[in-house]
């Protein structure tokens, strides 16, 4: 605490107290002073950004042109380009090849049989690593067949197979470009921030205008959402390559191109794979939202099942998404690992060198030929599927009938002692005071640049007239983040200290992250009714993962010498944790909380589906009214909140690292 002198500390505490008091009594105060504009920004002062944006967008879609080419012609051409490979993959996996249309349609070639696909992934798993992986992915695909999710899963897989290469490849290229041009990185950084933080619903309408209806728009939205981590990780990974390797490459006389593709990218491949993994996970995260604008597949099944309150069916389709995610993720990681190794080429003919490919190809032809006579070979028989749907329905019903009063009591307790006081305080803070405090905080944490950014961004939220909705957003996310931290950090510490608990916690977190939140949202509504508490549970469940992961990572990576030093000086286990492990892990934990905030904000649009009244709802209303400007303005407000929080926490984490001598 050397950097902050005693008086500074006192001032800080005083200001925090003043803010809380001001917030709590803000409403009464503004009434007493007859200055309601202090808490409620007058609508006459609002700058109508949304009408300007809407006008600009309709100009772009209807009139903008480069010479004879209209803007929409260009976007439609891009859509056409993406559609070709997508149609090919979709035909192969799901629909089969068909000529003619309507009644004259003929199936030229049916889709690849489930037997062949499953065999192919087993072979791929064995090729990439070992039989254990083969069994895992084979099991995943068998699950899809046995639980009757095959057809939908293949539609989803087709879109993943298109979106992931475009997202990962495009991200890699853009990342390389940013690595080569430092100025490019500076321009790109805020754009990436916006891509990651503006909710997809906000730009769905313009995308539909530009790329037309159907799966292609869904793919484009998915790619926009899933690419930024890849770009970031690429730039970071390339920068982190050991300078000696770089020098060595130069000395060997490589050209720039060779240096990049033969030296830099392979040496960074491990980190790059983390990016690819992120792209896959985010793509599968988007499955539900994509299905709302025409992607079909498993996401649509979840949505349709929940609309008829078939919780079991929704849950099964949701689990199918998790299973698919696990299979694709593990396979891609193993594949990348395998690519990084040196291979010996076995002598012999093509068939002896490619036993597995040959086998899969033979099987493919066999099922196509024999499939004409026995449909079993082409499609998994419906009579052999099993379902656990009734079990889930009954489980929710049992909880509902027997434990509702308990749930209700928990909810009322949280509302009265936790949620409502926070809400009242935040909504009562006069906006000029809030802007001033944010600016001050920015200045303390990161100097005048950060101060300027905090001031301008919060000011912009005020002049768009979204202040109170933004405060509801901050309240909902803030409360959820506090809870997620209280639950997540101890879980992470436990996972780091105890191996067995670690495995279980990891599995739990993986499932929570890939299971579409919509699946558990509806049962939660049944148990807790619509409202803020339900929304908070959904946000906590979704945003828990990074808090756990980063805490575990932070605790694990505390240096052994420090721990030994602690043990030597006679610390108990508890003291070791409190005085050595936790403080040293603090910067990592802070970064985890930062990610938790980001995820909480990205859940907002989903929670609007259970009736919250925040910026997420604003975006959702704009979507259903096809109001581009309104959606983008609210989306930008969410992005601003995210960026302010991100910068402040990052600056705080950096300060903590400097204090502990981890960084200078």
């Amino acid at each position, binding site marked *: 605490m050397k950097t902050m002198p005693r008086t500074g500390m006192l001032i800080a505490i005083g200001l925090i107290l003043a803010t809380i008091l001001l917030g709590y009594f803000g409403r009464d105060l503004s009434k007493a002073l007859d200055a309601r504009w202090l808490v409620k920004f007058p609508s006459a002062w609002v700058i109508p950004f949304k009408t300007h944006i809407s006008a600009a967008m309709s100009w772009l879609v209807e009139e903008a042109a480069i010479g004879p080419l209209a803007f929409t012609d260009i976007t439609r051409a891009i859509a056409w380009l993406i559609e070709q490979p997508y149609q090919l993959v979709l035909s192969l996996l799901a629909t089969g090849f068909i000529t003619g*249309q*309507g*009644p*004259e*349609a*003929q*199936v030229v070639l049916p889709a690849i049989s489930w037997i062949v696909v499953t065999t192919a992934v087993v072979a791929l798993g064995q090729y990439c690593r070992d039989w254990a992986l083969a069994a895992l992915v084979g099991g995943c695909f068998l699950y899809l067949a046995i639980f009757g999710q095959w057809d939908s899963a293949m539609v989803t897989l087709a879109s993943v197979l298109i979106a992931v290469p475009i997202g990962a490849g495009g991200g890699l290229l853009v990342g390389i470009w940013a690595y080569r041009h430092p100025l490019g990185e500076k321009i790109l950084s805020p754009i990436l921030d916006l891509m990651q933080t503006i909710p997809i619903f906000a730009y*769905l*309408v313009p995308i*539909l*205008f530009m790329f*037309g*209806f*159907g799966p292609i728009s869904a793919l484009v939205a998915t790619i926009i959402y899933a690419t930024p981590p890849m770009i970031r990780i690429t730039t970071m990974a390339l920068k982190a390559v050991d300078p000696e390797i770089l020098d060595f490459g130069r000395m060997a006389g490589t050209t720039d191109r060779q240096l990049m593709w033969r030296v830099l990218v392979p040496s960074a491949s491990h980190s790059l794979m983390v990016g690819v993994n992120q792209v896959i996970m985010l793509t599968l995260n988007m499955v539900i939202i994509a*299905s*709302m*604008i*025409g*992607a*079909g597949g498993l996401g*649509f099944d979840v*949505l*349709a099942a*929940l*609309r*008829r*309150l*078939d919780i079991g069916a929704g849950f099964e389709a949701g689990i199918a998404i998790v299973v698919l995610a696990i299979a694709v993720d593990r396979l891609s990681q193993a594949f990348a690992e395998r690519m990084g190794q040196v291979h010996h080429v076995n002598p012999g003919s093509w068939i002896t060198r490619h036993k597995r490919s040959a086998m899969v190809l033979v099987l493919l032809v066999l099922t*196509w*030929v024999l499939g*004409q006579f026995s449909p079993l070979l082409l499609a998994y028989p419906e009579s052999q599927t099993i379902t656990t749907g009734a079990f889930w329905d009954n489980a929710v*019903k049992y909880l*509902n*009938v027997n434990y*509702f009063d308990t749930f*209700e009591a928990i909810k*009322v307790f949280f*509302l009265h002692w936790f949620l409502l006081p926070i809400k009242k305080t935040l909504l009562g803070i006069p906006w000029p005071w809030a802007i001033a405090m944010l600016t001050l905080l920015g200045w303390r944490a990161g100097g005048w640049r950060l101060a300027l950014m905090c001031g301008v961004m919060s000011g912009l939220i005020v002049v768009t007239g979204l202040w109170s909705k933004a405060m509801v957003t901050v309240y909902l996310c803030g409360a959820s983040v506090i809870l997620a931290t209280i639950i997540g950090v101890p879980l992470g510490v436990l996972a780091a200290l105890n191996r067995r608990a670690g495995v279980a916690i990891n599995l739990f977190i993986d499932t929570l992250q890939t299971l579409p939140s919509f699946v558990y*949202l*509806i*049962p939660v*509504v*049944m*148990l807790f*009714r*619509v*409202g803020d508490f339900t929304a908070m549970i959904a946000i906590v469940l979704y945003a828990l993962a990074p808090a756990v992961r980063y805490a575990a990572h932070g605790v694990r990576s505390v240096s052994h010498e420090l721990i030994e030093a602690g043990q030597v000086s006679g610390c108990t286990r508890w003291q070791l944790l409190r005085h050595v492990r936790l403080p040293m892990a603090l910067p990592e934990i802070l970064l985890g909380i930062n990610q938790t905030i980001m995820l909480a904000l990205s859940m907002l649009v989903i*929670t*609007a*589906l*259970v*009736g*919250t009244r925040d910026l997420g*709802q604003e975006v*959702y*209303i704009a*979507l*259903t*009214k*096809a109001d581009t400007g309104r959606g983008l303005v609210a989306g930008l407000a969410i992005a601003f909140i995210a960026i302010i929080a991100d910068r402040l926490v990052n600056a705080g984490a950096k300060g903590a690292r400097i204090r502990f001598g981890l960084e200078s």
Partner: protein
Amino acid sequence: MKRSLNILSGLTLAAATSATAAFAVESSDPIKLTLHDWSGQLINTKIMGSILEEAGYTVEYVQADYIAQFAGLKTGDLHLAMEIWETTGREALDEATETGKVVNVGETGLMAIEEWWYPSYMKDRCPGLPNWEALKDCAEEFATAETDPMGRYVGGPVTWGGFDDERVEALELDFEVVHAGTDAALFAELESAYQREDPIILWVYVPHWAPAKYDGEFVEFPAYTPECYSDPSVGVNPNMAYDCGKPRGPIWKAAWAGLQDKWPGAYDIIEAYSLSNDEMSAMVGKADLDGVEIDTVVSDWMSANKDRWSGWIGQ
């Protein structure tokens, strides 16, 4: 292999052409129909699609959002939307038809009813129902811990409009309006309360599977008139508007304006197409409650009503 494929395709071709006499269609480009995420709309659209196919047209189904689809209908990316509800979609439909790029093809024959609804067991606790005035005395019966002593009414998503906040005020009902964010959340509340036989009153609409699954009734408010919404002096409360029930209205068919030029025959069929609420409720019940596949429900209707739809094609 090629031979067997030819045999197979020959068979499907024969099956397709035998259904109807060869009917020269204006264009074999696919007519794109939009699908949403509720069963009634899927059934409605697929029946329409099946009839068009029987008439020789090519049909393609596209998944689209209920309101966002108008963007596609305007540009001609999409061609036909089978369920635009007077109650929830009229505003968007009018806005679209004003541009001249979308046309209203008329009613589907289905009538949308939206109103406050309660399960039958609530009648014991609030005996005056379904008359709305009973709600004045037993608002407390509908209270929860959060709203006590006010009753709790679960309204639709804010995007549905509905003027429930205004209605509660105008009719002097001691109710708090809570908005569910989505249709799914709305009915999750009903399912939950129904399982426990707990008090609930909420926004229900038909055609929907809920009234088939749960035993209950609509509240009878003073009947809706346009003046009741626009003129405060009309109705029970002389000082406020919205002192009546919700409007009821048809479910419309909306199409891309170019559809009539490109497929005039199809346009006539679409215009003639009509179903009834009872038919639709029965089909939705079959699909959502008995777990029958939508395609089976559709083909059952097609075979049971051959005369009806042949008549629409023949016009």
